[in-house]
């Protein structure tokens, strides 16, 4: 039961309209696309860093957890309030505060939607490089918390490579800046530690990112292959040939079928897998590299390779890729997306293992993923109404992650550990490794009030974590 004086105090800060606590209103905030669900006690929509600072101080007084939330697209349970508390929804803080065109910098609030920033600066000849496939809805604050990537991070890197500074509200309500408008400022790279901390070390309230000039030329290739094996081999061949495309995305037969059911963007139905290979840069560079891509794919007996002839054609190809997850709904009522990473040379082997797992559990698995980075997204298709399905699917997800780890890969490339994968952390890290991470967390947020129970195995305050306390001085 929520304390009514807490509600009163929160309303005093943000106004009556921006505090929700009736169970019906809370339903949409219990979920982030993963399998985990939990209701917050109260949802607050702050408008400024000062609002957040006051809310955090109130939370401290009332001994409440704070769970930051952007658009809730996280897919790993990161923004789900597993232990209740105050959910801090940052979508009202969605202003692009200033653009410095000459130094190519943008100062934004955390609730700015990723794609809106690129749209806003396009007329200035600039773009914001990290482009999660969810970019039409996910927020820059969420991107920072998850250190998100996207199809084009193959060439441009992930969020941490593009964020220069961040104003944060700390666990005790202080407002401080990490980083600056340029790199290499004296002292520890606290910002580097903060990015990817999944809302557990502070709330990002203002962000300075660097922007890039829009490339002169872009060419998007659609290469189709008879088998997923051939397509993965083509990925390795492109990467080891010395080319760095801006994106290499793969979709398998099932995904193609789903996309063509829903988005109809012209992917060939005879293909076992397609690759979207995008190049960008100067006109000469791109046309030269395009020839090399054609040669590589042709030498590997691709069924067909074509280049989008217009912006419309290119957009259609990407619409298919970006709409692929949604389109899977045409094949099954539910899907469970696994986010794992393998060394790129291990793609063929891992995809075979995934196919075996699919046979074993007798459920189809569609693959649509950032192949150039080795970042797999096998989607297990199922119907949650069927009894025992959830356990079966989660079990298969665990097997897939184990397969990634077995070939030298890891548990997550972009969706974060969140709640969903925290018990898997021991597959990669020892107690001592986790102890170091907890030390980082502890220097920012020693009380575990922010987004409790995420990333680290165990309960809300990570107290069941092995060595941590024994090593304290």
């Amino acid at each position, binding site marked *: 039961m929520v304390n009514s004086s807490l509600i009163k105090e929160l309303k005093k800060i943000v106004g009556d309209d921006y505090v929700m606590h009736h169970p019906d209103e809370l339903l949409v905030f219990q979920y982030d696309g993963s399998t985990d669900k939990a209701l917050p006690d109260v949802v607050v929509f702050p408008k400024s860093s000062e609002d957040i600072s006051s809310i955090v101080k109130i939370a401290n007084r009332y001994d409440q957890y704070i769970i930051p939330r952007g658009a809730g697209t996280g897919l790993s349970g990161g923004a789900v309030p597993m232990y209740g508390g105050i959910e801090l929804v940052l979508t009202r803080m969605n202003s692009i505060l200033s653009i410095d065109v000459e130094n190519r910098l943008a100062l934004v609030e955390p609730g700015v939607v990723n794609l809106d920033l690129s749209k806003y600066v396009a007329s200035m000849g600039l773009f914001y490089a990290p482009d999660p496939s969810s970019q039409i809805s996910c927020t820059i604050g969420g991107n920072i918390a998850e250190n998100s990537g996207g199809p084009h991070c193959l060439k441009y890197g992930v969020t941490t490579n593009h964020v220069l500074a961040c104003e944060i509200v700390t666990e005790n309500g202080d407002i401080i800046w990490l980083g600056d408008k340029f790199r290499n400022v004296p*002292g520890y790279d606290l910002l580097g530690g903060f990015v990817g901390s999944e809302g557990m070390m502070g709330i990002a309230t203002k962000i300075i990112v660097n922007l890039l000039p829009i490339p002169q030329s872009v060419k998007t290739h659609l290469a189709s292959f008879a088998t997923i094996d051939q397509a993965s081999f083509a990925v390795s061949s492109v990467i080891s040939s010395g080319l760095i495309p801006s994106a290499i995305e793969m979709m398998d037969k099932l995904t193609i079928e789903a996309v063509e059911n829903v988005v109809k963007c012209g992917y060939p139905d005879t293909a076992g897998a397609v690759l979207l290979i995008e190049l960008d840069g100067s006109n000469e560079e791109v046309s030269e590299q395009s020839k090399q891509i054609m040669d590589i794919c042709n030498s590997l007996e691709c069924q067909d390779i074509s280049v989008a002839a217009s912006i419309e054609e290119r957009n259609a190809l990407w619409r298919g890729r970006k709409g692929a997850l949604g389109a899977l709904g045409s094949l099954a009522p539910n899907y469970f997306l696994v986010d794992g990473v393998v060394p790129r040379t291990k793609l063929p082997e891992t995809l075979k293992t995934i196919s075996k797992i699919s046979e074993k559990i007798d459920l189809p698995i569609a693959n649509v993923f950032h192949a150039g980075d080795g970042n797999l997204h096998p989607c297990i298709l199922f119907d949650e109404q069927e009894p025992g399905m959830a356990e079966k699917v989660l079990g298969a997800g665990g097997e897939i992650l184990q397969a990634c780890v077995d070939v030298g890969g890891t548990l997550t490339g972009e969706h974060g550990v969140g709640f969903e994968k925290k018990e898997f952390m021991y597959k990669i890290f020892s107690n001592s490794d986790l102890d170091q991470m907890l030390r980082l967390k502890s220097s920012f947020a020693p009380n575990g009030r922010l987004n409790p129970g995420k990333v680290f195995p165990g309960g809300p305050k990570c107290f069941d974590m092995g060595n941590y306390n024994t090593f304290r001085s």
Partner: protein
Amino acid sequence: MVSVDHDLEKYKVDGYIPSKTISPKSPESLADLLRIASENRWNVIPFGFGNMMNIGSIPNGYDIALDLNQIPKYIQHNSEDLTVTCSSNTSFGELNLKLQEKQQWLPFDSPLINDQSVGGLLACNLPGSLNACFGYIRDYVIGMKTATPFGQITKSGGTVVKNVTGFDLTRLHIGALGTLGIITEASFKIIPLPERQIYLRIDNENTNALIDLSSLLNSILQSFGVAELLIDSLGVASIYMTCIGTEKVVNEKLLEIKTILFDHEIDLTLNEIAEKEWLNIQDFGWVNEDDFVLGRINCLPTDTIKILQQINRIVADNKKERIDTLTNSKRGVIKYKINPDNIEDTIQIIENIRDKVKKHSGYTVIENSGTFDKNKLNIWGDIPESFPLMRKLKSEFDPVNILNSGRFIGGI
């Protein structure tokens, strides 16, 4: 497990000689030593190749020099995945040579780049010109192992190019001068070696013309190269450039540069120079420079030339000290090298520069103080707003403060 070296003089840091040198033979014995040092509150200074020991403030004490060179060295190059993992005591020069066998590389430069160990390079984090084209070393590190003062070898990240599993500790250690742990292994993503890299120089005594030209060249070179402007103490200027890319791109850029020089109102010649000369520029303030103090300014690219001009005024007003500058308007970096004639004057010049830089919201640190008495210098400049967090971080990672104690910002 360890060997004890009695040749203590070569491990001198800021005039301090350690009581003991220890050379662990494995990362595990290194970690053990750190635990023992923690239990005994010994001040430890890790030693890679020892070429950059002038960085930082004076240590709080110096019980043990920890020589990392007897730990087995290795390089695991996964050329098809474009990744490499190596021991931190690998020479960066050797690492890049190995990568080049497969037409790949790590696109960094830094002072004394080929004489730094990988661990030292990461811990000191003194980026050179190439970061203007390729980003920073922090953008290439995908995993790291460190020995902690608790006696453990711990890892973060991994060997895949995309990874958000767990918090990112690698970036904390980069530029931390070994105050949070000792890096024992690092993994990098690497990139294909460009088809061609050329090095160019333009000299002229018309300093103002070259200042403008260097900015223009930086914008023409885009991400395919970078121009550094050297102005020596006599006011003679030179532009040093590198251009990198495919044969075609490099030729095109070269043609653009030549056209600009041809159209320029003053007579300018473009000299193609050897890589060695370019590397000498990267070593600015680090080779045989005992009598110099080297400062570095970081600022917004658009403020670089404004700050340089203010420094030039300080130089013109000062008759005694010799001051050279190396400026990069693309990166927002100015390095200045003062030959101290009079200690008080030198300190005054540094403070003047610091004042000007502060007005532009930039930073100045002393990168290399040569033989200058560090007690008289403010090595790290003003401490940032987030300093209390830095202190907390240090106390979490190194609770009894054994690692490089006192050498980092704010006496950390």
